[in-house]
């Protein structure tokens, strides 16, 4: 499996990247870890006549932890797992990253590539929606911010323009309990269903909840209604059922090799219940 030939570029700064993107338009594409793009190029499902490798571009990786957490686009999944400050401030990132692929893929795959890719199977987009993250883009017109909850339009279609590059994501340091639950056919597989949940508890009452689902529609789904169904309750069985019903109204799974629609909805409900219960127990 050899991909079609391409010109290879490894610019050292963003100006260099943007210049190539502008010159070649649709024919140029950036590559981060390559672990979504290279398999597609080998299958010749993606053709990239001008390939821009971001590995040497300065300032694209690293994690800053404060009231707002900022993670550079080229930060690998392996780096997310091994950052002690990030684990203390936002442990859901490690919990999710450990459920992505396998160790070899996690050394190469980046947060930026995972969220920019637009594959509904990717785990980070749903997580970013749960955390109400902001994506930072740069293009020929300058910098621009987009909410993760507004970024995804359809499978492989995002709000990012062809000549824009994602530089970082940021999100407010999450509060309360958390859980990333994922059902997969085997270790290393994409989700049949996954849920990202953050819950804030005050006394015995839920005062805030954020729920997002993965691989159950052609985009990740942030379920406002499911989140609201928990707020003001003691997260008892009735509240969890209401949240699951609301979530099921928001997702739109299709039948594929992971199962028929009824099965996916069933799994989505089971996974969300587990995630809510675990997040609540940690809140």
């Amino acid at each position, binding site marked *: *499996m050899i991909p079609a030939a391409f010109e290879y570029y490894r610019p050292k700064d963003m100006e260099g990247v943007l210049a190539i993107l502008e010159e070649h338009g649709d024919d140029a594409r950036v590559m981060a870890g*390559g672990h979504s793009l290279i*398999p597609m190029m080998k299958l010749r499902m993606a053709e990239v006549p001008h390939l821009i490798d971001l590995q040497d571009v300065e300032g694209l990786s690293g994690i800053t932890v404060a009231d707002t957490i900022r993670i550079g686009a080229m930060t690998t999944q392996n780096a997310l797992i091994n950052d002690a400050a990030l684990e203390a401030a936002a442990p859901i990132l490690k919990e999710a990253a450990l459920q992505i692929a396998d*160790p*070899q893929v996690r*050394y190469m795959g980046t947060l930026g590539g995972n969220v920019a890719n637009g594959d509904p199977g990717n785990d980070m987009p749903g997580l970013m929606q749960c955390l109400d993250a902001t994506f930072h883009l740069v293009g020929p017109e300058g910098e621009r911010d987009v909410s993760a909850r507004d970024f995804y339009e359809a499978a492989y279609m995002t709000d990012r323009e062809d000549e824009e590059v994602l530089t970082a994501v940021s999100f407010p340091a999450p509060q309360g309990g958390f859980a990333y639950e994922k059902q997969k056919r085997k*270790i290393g597989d994409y989700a049949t269903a996954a849920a990202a949940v953050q819950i804030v508890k005050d006394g015995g009452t839920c005062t805030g909840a954020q729920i997002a689902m993965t691989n159950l529609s052609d985009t990740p789904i942030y379920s406002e209604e499911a989140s609201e169904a928990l707020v003001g309750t003691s997260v008892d069985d009735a509240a969890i059922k209401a949240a699951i019903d609301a979530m099921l109204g928001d997702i739109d799974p299709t039948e594929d090799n992971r199962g028929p629609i009824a099965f996916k909805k069933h799994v989505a409900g089971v996974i969300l219940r587990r995630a809510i219960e675990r997040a609540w127990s940690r809140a």
Partner: protein
Amino acid sequence: MSDKMHIKLNVNGKDEEFLAEPRELLIHTLRERLDITGPHIGCETTHCGACTVTIDGKSVKSCTMFLAQANGAEITTIEGMGEPDNLHVLQSSFKEHHGLQCGFCTPGMITRAAKLLEENPNPTEEDVRFGMAGNICRCTGYQNIVKSILAAAAEMNSAKEAAE
């Protein structure tokens, strides 16, 4: 066809320099250009881990890296780990504990296991199974692979203690 690139690699401590197309996959460079045939091609689709090598301190499936990406890198393959008459601890441990049957997955297993033990010298059985999840074996059922890696960890640790 795109222009050939000037490539420099250090593979198992030896500098290599040649011209090649950027789309060449690293596994083909190793096997066909440099005659380093320890890393195997099991699936070509990033699933089996038979092609695993160490690149600048990371375990990587070399069927999923363009040669151009690896330009300038330091690469270690199974050939760089031991010699037939001077085996690496992991190699002798796999031999002793029957960590292989056909042996096709073994170079990838051992290369990956070496990195795992470097990062976590005292792994539990679960750590080993989780850390080896990117490597598939069709023969052994994994039991003896896990045993071999745990035994190698113990041996490396007691050798370290003895040296101290």
